[in-house]
């Protein structure tokens, strides 16, 4: 995967996203900390080994279910920054749900006062090797 690339795979009939985040993308999460409803993902559905603002085992690779926590539409990636995105002048990149307009940042964290109540769900996943990812199971050790 190229830096910044988003890949969608099907798991349990649902889209799962794998986003390879660039250092700039990861840095943007600091800026969105104040804008999102649950920056530490305390309420979010995610395995215990997913923590902090990056919400990933390896910060570079963000894995989550591409299903809005509101009514289950699949949000659209809006990677263009600022006014180019058509969302706001300070847009840091993220996702927009086409159904009811919920916004999420690059760690799937929902912005404040959106229809969606929670951050996007991170499924169980584990790295079988540096290049192979298994979705749906935890690693043996954890």
């Amino acid at each position, binding site marked *: 995967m190229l830096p910044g690339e988003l890949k*969608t795979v*099907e798991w349990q*009939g649902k889209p799962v996203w794998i986003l390879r985040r660039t250092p700039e993308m990861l840095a943007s999460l600091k800026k969105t900390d104040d804008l999102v409803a649950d920056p530490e993902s305390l309420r979010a559905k995610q395995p215990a080994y997913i923590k902090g603002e990056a919400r990933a085992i390896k910060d570079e690779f963000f894995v989550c279910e591409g299903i809005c926590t*509101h*009514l289950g539409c699949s*949000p659209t990636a809006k990677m263009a920054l600022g006014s180019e995105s058509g969302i706001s002048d300070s847009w840091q990149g993220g996702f927009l749900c*086409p*159904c009811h307009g919920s916004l999420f940042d690059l760690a799937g964290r929902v912005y404040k*006062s959106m*229809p969606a109540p929670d951050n996007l769900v991170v499924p169980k996943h584990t790295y079988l090797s540096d290049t192979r990812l298994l979705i749906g199971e935890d690693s043996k050790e954890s």
Partner: protein
Amino acid sequence: MQKQAQQLLDWVDARFPLTFLWESQWGKYVAPKNFNFWYIFGSLAMLVLVIQIVTGIFLVMHYKPDASLNAAGVPVAFASVEYIMRDVPGGWIIRYLHSTGASAFFVVVYLHMFRGLMYGSYRKPRELVWLFGVAIFLCLMAEAFFGYLLPWGQMSFWGAQVIVNLFGSVPLIGEYLSLLIRGDYVVSDATLNRFFSFHVIAIPLVLIGLVAAHLTALHEVGSNNPDGVEIKKQPKDANGIPLDGIYSHPYYTIKDIFGAVVFLFVFAAVVFFMPEGGGYFLEFNNFIPADPLKTPPHIAPVWYFTPYYSILRATTSDFMLWLGVFVLIVGGLSFFSLRHKLAKLAAVGVTGVLVLGFIFLDAKFWGVVLMGVSVLLFALLPWLDRSPVKSIRYKGSLYKAVLAVFVVCFVVLGYLGILPPTPVGTIVSQICSILYLGFFAFMPWYTAMDRTQPEPERVTWQ
């Protein structure tokens, strides 16, 4: 020859009440003589029901409710609809009749309901006619919703996804409820199969039963009319017919045939020249096969659901405060207006429970409730309207103004429901939602305050 026909009829009548049924339900059914334009939509609804059933029978012969992919990688259900459109002889017209019929059904039914609102057709003694009608409206919405999944296009899939997930917001049982409706954890082949079953057998059976009940009740109590005059109370002529009454046959047979002809002109024009209805009757995104991995950039329900969809979208967490104030006002008014002590207590109890619910339960849940309530409120009209007269012709300017506001709100909500959500649109739809609810909630007071004119003895008729 005529003698033999009469003998045959006598033979049947001795064994089955054929003549009786014909005469009581239509032939000798006495209706007021002053029906106007607004009185054709009942028979048109029957016509559309027949069109839907007949075309539906032929569609089921070729349609396959199967979400698996065929050799070309297209879902079988979607491909079978394309097959009907391209390969089945006459398939395209059968399907366009059915899809246009769905929209026509709602056009006709909304106008039929508006007629009822204008002339007070829900008032005593027609409460049951009205309640059967509300049940028909509910069935129609369910029928349309289940049918919309069948082509298995993008809008089918994501529309069902959103609506089924709505039920997930019901406290405690929500998750289980949406699982029960879907038959799976995601909208899938299981969902498609059960929606097909509901669309072609379960709901139509109930619908036909309700239509029969609606008509039987109507022919028992007699039709209302644009003056709201009860012709049954009038003196009768030599034939035992009320002064302002006429037989449905041949008078209204002719009128209804004329109405059907005009309707079919418009209907055929849509079927032949604009079957997609500009993307409102058949949505453009639904010509793309269902893709569980990608939601279309803009999803909206078909036009006839948009007023209720707008009410659903308007119910955000900010809106709950408005709604709380609204319920407190209605509750307070009820408390001071109701005489009976138990009724007063009930008003306080219901208001309290609602306000607590608004505070502790999700706005998402209340959106679903409000959407359901805004449909069901029609059922209460016979008991909410306290005007001494039925028809808008003799009601005062207050009622006319309120009804006009209600209709404007309904149309605005419908229009906003087809657009993507915007901050201004949300505020406008919140105002319209409150006014929509207010039409029903404040009806006992404004209909009692309204300055009406006395109803005449005879109907007005030129």
